[in-house]
Each structure stands twice: as structure tokens, then as C-alpha cells.
């Protein structure tokens, strides 16, 4: 009986185990396949984004991600250049008539729609007139075409004329997508903002645009959008074959995907992870000025206005200018930028961000509200705010109202919360009580429209043109009642001069004139403090350097972010990256003349942006008068001139990419002139070793010594002074008397006045060497730069003896400046240790993970053993029937 029983148990155990094995196998198999991905023929760049498009119908879209996608598919009349200024796109050039009301745009003639048809003036005219004729369905774009008189007219196939009823300053920043007339004209008007871009009847070949990328496929459920390169685009071609935008629900999942090599570019890296991301090998990043401002808003609603807001805040002290200015002086913007934003933002002052630097007003030193608690207290005392009731909060001398304000921030923004906590502390120092409360953005909407917020931290996305941002502070944008959805002002600030200047700048076409008005408006706003602009955030973009390269310099041009076409014109897969830049300013030296039989040495000069000079190959070609030519390799070569006449010397420098640059010179070889003799000699150092490339100067002739330090020059009879010199050595001179037909020998020795300086750069935390750190040395007026190689090694030769300042920098590490003593003739070693900015070692070591798993396993085992042991002694109790599953 027993063995059967035993058998059954065993067989059952076996069944369960093989079920488990089968299951693991089923899953394990696909895992293994992840590495051996099929070789992709066409290259695909995967860009991770954090927002899902609402719709890609150009008339209905509202979210910024939809704009980004569609402005890669459709062209606009004028472009947004890499530096965010207006430039030409479909419109090649434009002119206005004397009155400034009639604009004439000349279109490029080689723009093509993705289905091959030509882009003509009819398309532009159709798009603009459709919007002007249907303001409701095209509600999205009507604002851009304000003051434009209907109809827009096509003069000929490639010229469009637009008339405005009043001078329009924002004519060159009309961001309206130009649509193909031959397709969209079939769509009846009231379905314009309802039709699906992939509607088969209206758009048989899918959405057709004329931009650099074709909109191929969009899967809303799986969250990706595929776009194909349009290789007939008239400005430039996208390098990769396909661009895939992948949508993520949270930045956590996006960053995991970047580290797991599932995506190539991540748009919107969280600030706290920035140093961590840059230190991961194979990943680099750039912090780019963003078109956005974060501000501490103050409620300036007048008492009368607050009447039509039942729940309005009743503390009117924020309408007092000195209170607002005191608050501005009590805001420690440097702390917020350096500590809260970890340096990834710019201290703010006026409401137009520095990304659009042309329109930004740089507040000068005197009028700046710098962080001065004492000055703020003095200002409040002068304004009559004193703490009468002893609760160390200042109150209004006459009415006794305390300076106690409601203060809101968005609870899901951790940075806003830290900033709010700091502002609360510093306001307390000037006797103002403001306890920050975190609410959802939806509730902030309601409190704004209820005029209930005294102080609040909120943000704005600004536009390429400052017009909209300036309009948000005008009087007619102040909501008049809690239901007044459509007004934008949240400070309720009203100022007649500001309003007047706003209208004036709207109609000033001349750029400089408009700029001066806009700067004046920002100065006024800065002084009146309805907003204390805290900072301008940075857009953080991280990307792989293993699979793609040649990323544009976004920090210099804020307009080249991954959302713009300029970005895709640059990024290239590493596999087919060719260094397009040939070596530059190749220099073989000046024309020379010498006497037949002389040996001259030549040293080539050239530099190349991407490749170090050592990797370049140098070829010298000497063509004699009898057209025989010899080719010598090497940066410094010497050649004996045996034939008299003109010898042409050509230097060709080629870089690893196969591109080369050339320079040439001519050597006039003459016989030994009547009555002249030879001057020869050897230049050597103190150990009498010949010095190559030393410069010999005698009368008007200059020669450089060959490999053995020898030189040779012919001179007319007479006595001469011969000078020899070389960088890193002293100077030597000697006299020579030249006798016709004879050779005079003058040997010179040069004393070494320089030494070499080399060493390693280490991370003082882990002791590991740091690759690609920049080492810069300065001595006298000279500075030299060297980037450490993979082993962290650097070296400088021919460094003047004396003290040398060594300055080592690397992203993620603190700067390290030391000095080193260089003595002539020998090598000084100077190793440098850098301390990382965050002193823990980034990334996870497999050991740590193993540690955690071990701990869990031990706990589990202990529990099991404890139970097992007790089993032997007493009859084991059994657990009851069922724990209820659902809560």
C-alpha cells in the first residue's frame, strides 16, 4: 500500500516539475532571441516622448506633441531657424509695399508633396482662405491670421500676395501648416476638423505633406508613430531612413527603456537623474534652453474686480507694490536653481525666456531685485507694515490685516514643492506668512478662476514670437467672472501704459523698433512684480552614442532639439558615419630659394575637427624641372635639390575618412652664384645629439635642420651672424665668414629650456582612471589642451621650464586646479584626482543585487527550517479552509 502511495506522490511531483520546466522554456526562448535581432536593412531612430497626441488632424490637434509631429510633415511659409529666429522655408523671399500693409511672398520652386505633385501658390492660398472663411472649424489657426484681409491672392504659380488691414508685426511667425490643395479641397468644410488623416477616400496614399518626414503609420494603442525620410525635400535630407516616436506613460518607464537600449533618444529626462544619465557609458545628453518660464505669481486683483468673484481672497495687501517688491527681494533664486534644479535651469528675471534671446530683456544690476533680506525688511518698514499684535507677522498699520497669504503649488511637481518650501522660509524672515499647499493642476485652474490664490507657483510654455506671452498680462486678458474660461491673465494685474505698449508693438513691423518697445514692456513688468520669474528650465535630452552620432550642438542653437527637422538633418547611424570635414588650413610652408645640392627640410601643418593630428597621413610630392617627381611620406621630410630651376612641392594631408586637403609651394634652385660660398653646420643639444627642425636664420635666408640636425645654405662672400632656435630650446648664434667657392662650417648647440609634463587623471572615490577628461595647462601667455585617452593618460612636450597651472575638468566631477614645476630637459609627472559631484558611485553593481536576493532567500529558508524542525515534535496543525481573496 505504501509504495504505491509513494509512487503516486512521486509521479505527481514529476508532473508539476515538468510543467514548470515547460513554462520556463516557453518564456526563456524568446528572451534569448532578444540579442540576435534581425539585421535591420534601413536605419531607424527611436525617439521616446512623454505625451500622447490627441489627434494628428491638423485642424483639431491641441497638444504640443501633435504640433511637433505635424510640423515635421507639413511646411510653413516661414521657418523657425536653429536659433529660433524666423527664416525662409516655402517662402524664399518676401517684400512689403510702402504702406507696410501688402506683403508679397516668392515661393521656392522645387518643393514637392509626398505624392510627387509640386507645391504651388494655390496650396498656400487655399490653406489661408479656408481658415479665413471658416473661423469655427479652423478655430485652431484663426488667431495667427488676425488682421489679414480675405482673400489671399496668388499672383502667379510661385508668388502669393497677403494684405493686412493694420500693420502686422507677427507676419513672419505664422505657424500655419500649408496643406495640399489637390486633396483637402475635396473634403467638405464642416468635416475639416473631424476627418481622420488616414481616411481612405479623402487621402488614398495616407496623410500627404511636403515636409522632411512622411507620416507613415500611427498605432494609438501600442503608442508609436512611424515616419519615413522624404528624400526630395528642398532644404536638406533626413539622414536616417525611419524615425519612430515611442510614447511612454511616465518618465520612469522611458528612462528604463533608454538604459535597456530599447530607445535611442529620450526627450524630457527628469532633472534629478541628469548626472546619473551622463555618467552611463554609451549615453550622452544636452541641457537646452527651453521655451518656458516658471514663476511665483502674485494676485493683483483690484477690490472692485474681486466683487464679481464670490470666493475671492480678501487679503488686499498683495495689491501694494512694496509688498510685491519685498517678496521679489526675498526669493532666493540662486538656491532654487543650484540646489532644487541641480543647476539645470537659468535664474529668471523678465517674462520672455532667454531661449528667444533677441526679445529677452536682461535686467541690469541696479534695478535687479537681488536676494537681500535686509533691504526687503527696510522696504516693508518704510511702507508702514509693522508687527503690532506680536505674532511676528507684519500687518497693515491702519487696517491691522496680517501679511498672511494663501500659497499654492502643483502637488505632482516635486521641484515646485521644494521651491515653495524655501520661499516659505525666506518670506518668514521678512515677516510674511505663506504656508504652501499642494493641489492638482485641475484644482489650480478653479482657484485661479475663483481669484482665490494670493501666491502660486505655475509655469508657461512661451512661443517663438513674444506676442502671446506679453498678451497674458494685458488688462483685457483679465477674467471678469469665475465662468470666464477664455482669458489668460492669472495675476489680474492691470497697467494702462503696458496695454498701450502692447498694442503699439503689435503693429510695429520694423524689428529693432518692436524690440525696443518689448524690452521697455518687460522692464515695466519687472519693476511692478505681478510675477517673480523664478527660472527658465532646461529641456533635457539624452541619447545613445553607441548606435548614432553627429548630434547637433543644441546648447548653442535651442531650435535644433529632437522636435525640429534640423535635428534629423544631422543625426547619423554610427555604421555609415563619414567625416565630411577634410583637414583644414593645410600649410606646407613659404616659397623658398636654395642653391643646387642643398637639402631642405619641410614640416607640414594641418588640423581636423574630428580626428587628432596624429591620425592624419602626410604625402609630399617634389616635381623637378625635368618633370620627374618623388613622393615622401611623413609630417617632416627633407629633400636634396640636385637640379637648378623651379621645383614645385605639394603637400597632401588625408584623414581616416579618406578626405584630404592640399597646399603647395615653389623652391627656386640656383647654381652657386659667382663670388658666393657655402655655409654648413650641425645644430645639436648638450648631449651633442642632432636637433631636427631647428630654424637657422642668416641674413635674409632661413633654413631648418634635417633629421641629423645638419643645415646648408649658400651666401655671397662676407661675414654673417648665424642664429639657431627651436621651441623648447634656448637660442644660439655664431659668426661665419664666407669665402667664394669654399665651405665654412659653423656648429651650434642649443640648451634645452623646456621639459615634458605628463600624468594620469583618477576618480578619487573609486581610484579608477577617467577617460576623455580635458587637461589644460597655462604657462607664460601660452595655453595648451589635451584630452586624456582611455587609460586617463595625458602628456605635453616642449613646455617652458617654470611653474605651470594644470586645470582638469570632466562633466560630473568637480574642477581641479593644481600647479606643477617643469624643469628643463626632463619629464615631470603630475597625477590629478577628481572628486565626483555626487559622492556615491552611480549604477548598480551585480554584487548589490545578489546581496538583496541572498537576504530574501535566507529569510525564506530560515522560516522553512523552523517549521520543519518543529514538525517532528508535535502533530502539525493545518491552515484553515480559505483566506478570502478579494478585499
Amino acid at each position, binding site marked *: 500500500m505504501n509504495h504505491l502511495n509513494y509512487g503516486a506522490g512521486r509521479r505527481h511531483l514529476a508532473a508539476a516539475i515538468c510543467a514548470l520546466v515547460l513554462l520556463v522554456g516557453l518564456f526563456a526562448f524568446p528572451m534569448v532571441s532578444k540579442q540576435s535581432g534581425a539585421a535591420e536593412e534601413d536605419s531607424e531612430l527611436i525617439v521616446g516622448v512623454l505625451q500622447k497626441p490627441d489627434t494628428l488632424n491638423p485642424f483639431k490637434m491641441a497638444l504640443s506633441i501633435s504640433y511637433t509631429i505635424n510640423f515635421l510633415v507639413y511646411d510653413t511659409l516661414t521657418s523657425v531657424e536653429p536659433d529660433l529666429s524666423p527664416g525662409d522655408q516655402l517662402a524664399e523671399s518676401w517684400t512689403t509695399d510702402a504702406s507696410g500693409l501688402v506683403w508679397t511672398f516668392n515661393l521656392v520652386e522645387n518643393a514637392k508633396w509626398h505624392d510627387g505633385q509640386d507645391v504651388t501658390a494655390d496650396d498656400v492660398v487655399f490653406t489661408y482662405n479656408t481658415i479665413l472663411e471658416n473661423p469655427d472649424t479652423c478655430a485652431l489657426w484663426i488667431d495667427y491670421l488676425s488682421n489679414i484681409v480675405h482673400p489671399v491672392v496668388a499672383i502667379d504659380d510661385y508668388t502669393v500676395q497677403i494684405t493686412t488691414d493694420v500693420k502686422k508685426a507677427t507676419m513672419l511667425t505664422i505657424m500655419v501648416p500649408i496643406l495640399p490643395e489637390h486633396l483637402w479641397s475635396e473634403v467638405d468644410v464642416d468635416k475639416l476638423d473631424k476627418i481622420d488623416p488616414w481616411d481612405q477616400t479623402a487621402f488614398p496614399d495616407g496623410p500627404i505633406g511636403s515636409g522632411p518626414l512622411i507620416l507613415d503609420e500611427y498605432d494609438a494603442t501600442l503608442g508609436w508613430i512611424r515616419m519615413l525620410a522624404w528624400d526630395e525635400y528642398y532644404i536638406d535630407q533626413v539622414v536616417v531612413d525611419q524615425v519612430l516616436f515611442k510614447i511612454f506613460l511616465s518618465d520612469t518607464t522611458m528612462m528604463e527603456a533608454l538604459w535597456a537600449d530599447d530607445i535611442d533618444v529620450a526627450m524630457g529626462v527628469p532633472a534629478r537623474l541628469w548626472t546619473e544619465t551622463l555618467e552611463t557609458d554609451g549615453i550622452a545628453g544636452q541641457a537646452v534652453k527651453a521655451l518656458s518660464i516658471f514663476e511665483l505669481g502674485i494676485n493683483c486683483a483690484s477690490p472692485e474686480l474681486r466683487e464679481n468673484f464670490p470666493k475671492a481672497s480678501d487679503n488686499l495687501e498683495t495689491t501694494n507694490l512694496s509688498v510685491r517688491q519685498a517678496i521679489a527681494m526675498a526669493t532666493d533664486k540662486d538656491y532654487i536653481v543650484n540646489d532644487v534644479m541641480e543647476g539645470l535651469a537659468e535664474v529668471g528675471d523678465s517674462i520672455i525666456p532667454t531661449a528667444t534671446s533677441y526679445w529677452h530683456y536682461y535686467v541690469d544690476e541696479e534695478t535687479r531685485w537681488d536676494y537681500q533680506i535686509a533691504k526687503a525688511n527696510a522696504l516693508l518698514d518704510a511702507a508702514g507694515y509693522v508687527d503690532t499684535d506680536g505674532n511676528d507677522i507684519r500687518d497693515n498699520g491702519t487696517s491691522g490685516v496680517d501679511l498672511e497669504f494663501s500659497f499654492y503649488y502643483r502637488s505632482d511637481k516635486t521641484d515646485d514643492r521644494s521651491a515653495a518650501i524655501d520661499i516659505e522660509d525666506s518670506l518668514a524672515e521678512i515677516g510674511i506668512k505663506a504656508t504652501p499647499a499642494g493641489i492638482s493642476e*485641475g484644482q489650480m485652474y478653479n482657484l485661479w478662476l475663483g481669484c482665490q490664490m494670493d501666491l502660486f507657483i505655475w509655469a508657461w510654455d512661451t512661443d517663438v514670437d513674444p506676442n502671446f506671452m506679453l498678451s497674458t498680462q494685458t488688462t483685457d486678458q483679465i477674467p471678469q467672472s469665475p465662468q470666464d474660461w477664455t482669458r489668460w491673465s492669472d495675476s489680474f494685474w492691470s497697467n494702462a501704459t503696458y496695454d498701450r505698449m502692447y498694442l503699439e508693438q503689435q503693429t510695429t513691423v520694423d524689428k529693432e523698433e518692436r524690440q525696443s518697445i518689448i524690452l521697455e514692456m518687460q522692464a515695466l513688468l519687472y519693476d511692478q512684480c505681478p510675477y517673480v520669474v523664478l527660472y527658465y528650465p532646461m529641456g533635457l535630452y539624452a541619447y545613445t552614442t553607441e548606435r548614432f552620432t553627429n548630434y547637433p550642438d543644441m546648447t548653442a542653437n535651442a531650435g535644433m532639439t529632437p522636435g525640429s527637422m534640423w535635428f534629423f538633418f544631422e543625426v547619423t547611424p554610427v555604421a555609415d558615419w563619414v567625416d565630411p570635414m577634410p583637414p583644414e588650413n593645410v600649410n606646407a610652408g613659404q616659397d623658398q630659394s636654395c642653391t643646387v645640392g642643398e637639402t631642405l627640410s619641410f614640416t607640414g601643418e594641418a588640423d581636423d575637427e574630428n580626428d587628432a593630428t596624429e591620425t592624419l597621413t602626410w604625402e609630399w610630392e617634389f616635381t623637378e624641372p625635368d618633370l620627374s617627381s618623388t613622393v615622401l611620406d611623413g609630417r617632416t621630410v627633407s629633400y636634396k635639390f640636385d637640379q637648378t630651376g623651379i621645383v614645385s612641392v605639394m603637400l597632401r594631408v588625408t584623414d581616416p575618412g579618406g578626405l584630404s586637403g592640399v597646399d603647395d609651394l615653389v623652391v627656386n634652385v640656383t647654381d652657386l652664384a659667382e663670388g658666393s660660398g657655402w655655409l654648413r653646420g650641425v645644430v645639436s643639444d648638450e648631449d651633442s645629439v642632432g636637433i631636427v627642425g631647428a630654424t637657422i636664420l642668416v641674413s635674409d635666408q632661413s633654413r631648418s635642420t634635417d633629421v641629423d640636425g645638419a643645415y646648408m645654405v649658400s651666401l655671397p662672400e662676407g661675414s654673417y651672424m648665424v642664429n639657431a632656435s627651436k621651441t623648447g630650446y634656448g637660442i644660439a648664434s655664431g659668426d661665419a665668414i664666407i669665402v667664394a667657392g669654399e665651405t665654412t662650417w659653423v656648429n651650434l648647440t642649443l640648451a634645452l629650456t623646456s621639459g615634458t609634463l605628463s600624468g594620469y587623471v583618477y576618480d578619487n572615490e573609486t581610484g579608477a582612471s577617467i577617460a576623455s577628461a580635458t587637461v589644460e595647462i597655462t604657462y607664460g601667455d601660452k595655453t595648451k589642451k589635451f584630452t586624456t585617452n582611455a587609460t586617463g593618460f595625458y602628456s605635453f612636450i616642449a613646455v617652458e621650464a617654470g611653474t605651470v597651472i594644470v586645470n582638469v575638468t570632466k562633466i560630473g566631477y568637480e574642477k581641479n586646479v593644481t600647479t606643477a614645476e617643469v624643469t628643463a630637459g626632463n619629464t615631470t609627472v603630475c597625477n590629478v584626482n577628481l572628486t565626483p559631484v555626487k559622492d556615491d558611485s552611480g549604477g548598480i553593481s551585480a554584487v548589490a543585487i545578489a546581496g538583496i536576493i541572498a537576504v530574501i532567500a535566507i529569510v525564506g529558508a530560515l522560516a522553512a527550517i523552523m517549521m520543519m524542525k518543529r514538525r517532528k515534535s508535535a502533530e502539525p496543525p493545518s491552515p484553515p479552509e480559505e483566506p478570502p481573496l478579494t478585499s
Partner: protein
Amino acid sequence: MRNGKILIARKAFNSFITLLMVVVMNFFLFRVIPGDPLMNLRNNTRVSDEYKEQFIHDFGLDQPIYVQFLKYIENVFTLNFGNAISEPLRPAMDIILDNMVWTLILTGTSSILMIVIGMSIGILAAWKRGGAFDTGSMAFSLFFYAMPTFWFAMMLIVIFATELKWTPSGGALEYGTRFEFTWISIKDMLSHLVLPATALTIGSIAAFSLIMRGSLIDVMTEEYITTARAKGMTERKVLKDHALPNAMLPMVALIAIDIAFVVGGAFQAEVVFDYPGIGWLTVKATIDKDFPLLEAAFFLIAVVVIIANLIADVLLVYMDPRVKME
């Protein structure tokens, strides 16, 4: 069997009323969400005033509540919940159905795993009660039953996806591909399913094996088991013919109730692994205040769970006519 049919009919009627209640609750629940759906347009400077008025009109925000309610009820019967706010040109029901497929795949695999592994562990543990396997599996089950799914998922993603790079870090398929019935696509889907299914299943396997073990031990003490043994049947035959079938009965009922629990767990796994299911969608819709989407999601989940319960009840009745439904 006649009263079996009546029982099922009554059960079906009850389920229908429950569904009606869900529909009514949906309407009031979601129209009360504070804040406004235009919230994410606030920062977008390009949106004009006319657009906002158009938006309010489209979603009937300006009509009185009862008008909205009547329109809503009429729509529900035609399965038309209107277009989603976050995707104005797509009907909410289509979006939900697309996402529902992936949640069903995830909960389907997890349920199968849970039942297969959970039961075999439970049977083995009950069979060798007090043995090493029993206490070991009990410790395992208790430990993982207590673990929050999202926390365990976080650990999995860091170790297996980011550090060891064995499995993809998230999503349901290779980015940029759609599902076809080719071997590569199936393999791709499975490799994306590994981590979410593990995170979701571990907890349910634990619970399931405990229940199975408990109910089997409970059945083993019944009189008819001792009589069967008395008749000289081998222990294995007793287990197979008598103990297991009866132990299975309560399991079927529990599987049905458990579906809502598994879907709850799926929500967490989807959020952590960016898996495009209903959970992912519901969390996003709550953030976007997208009430048409939420109404459609809750309606569909309720339908699925109710149908599952109905099937379980029908199975119950046919499997054991003796069961008297209270």
C-alpha cells in the same frame, strides 16, 4: 436539472441589474470629477478661445445635468460613449476595445499560469502534508501573497530588463511593430509578456495554492473519503476520483471572483511596465480627467467580469447538480 435552469436564469437577471447599476454609477461618478478637462490645454499657447468654446459644446458641458443623463443613457444602449477628450477623433469604445485585448492577453496568461501552477503546488502540498515541499511552498506562498505587485514589478524590471538586459524593459511588442500571427511576432509578444506576467502571477499563484491546499485537506476529512478508503481503493484512486473533483468545486467559484482581483493586479503591472492595457488607460484617463473614456472602461470591465461570473455559475450548476443555490 430543471431548477438548475431557473437558477441560471435568475442569476443572469441579477447580473443584468448589476450592470445597470454600474452604468448609472458611472454617469454620476465621473461627472463629479473636480477640475476641468481643458486643464492640459492651459499651457498650450496656440489654443485659441474659439477652440475652447467649441470643445465645451462638443462634450455638452454647458447643458444641464439631466439632459446630459438622458443623452448618456441613450448612448450606452448603442455602446456609444462619445469621443474621448484626450483623443477627440476616436470613439471611446474603440480605444477601450483596442486596449482591452492586451489586458485580456495579460490576465489570460496569468490566470492560466495561476491555475496550472497554483493548483499543482496546492495539490502536492496537501498530498504531502507536513512534508518539506508543503512547508516550503507555504513559506513561498505566504511571502509572495503579502508582496505589493507594483513593488515586485519594480524589482523585476531593474534586475532583468535594465541590468541583465535579458528581457525588454516594457511595452507589449517591439516598438513600431504590430501583432501578426507569425512566429517572430508571437515570440516578440511572449518576450514582452515575461516580466508583467511574472509580477502579476506570483501573488495569485501564492493565493491559489493556499486555497487549493486548504480545500483539498478539508475534503480529505469528509466521511465519503474514509468510506472510499474503507472499500480498499488505493490512495491515488481516492485522490483522483473523490477528493479532487469535490475540492475543485469551490475552486471554480473562486476563479470567477478572483478575476476582478487579477485585473486589479494587472492595473499595477501595466503601469510599471508601460503595458498598453485597460489599467494603463484608466490611470492616464484619470489624470487627463477624460470621463467618456473612464465610463467606457468601467462599463466594459463590468461586462467582462459579470460574464466570467455567469460562466463560473453555469459550470458550477452542471458540474454538481446537488449544489443548492441560495
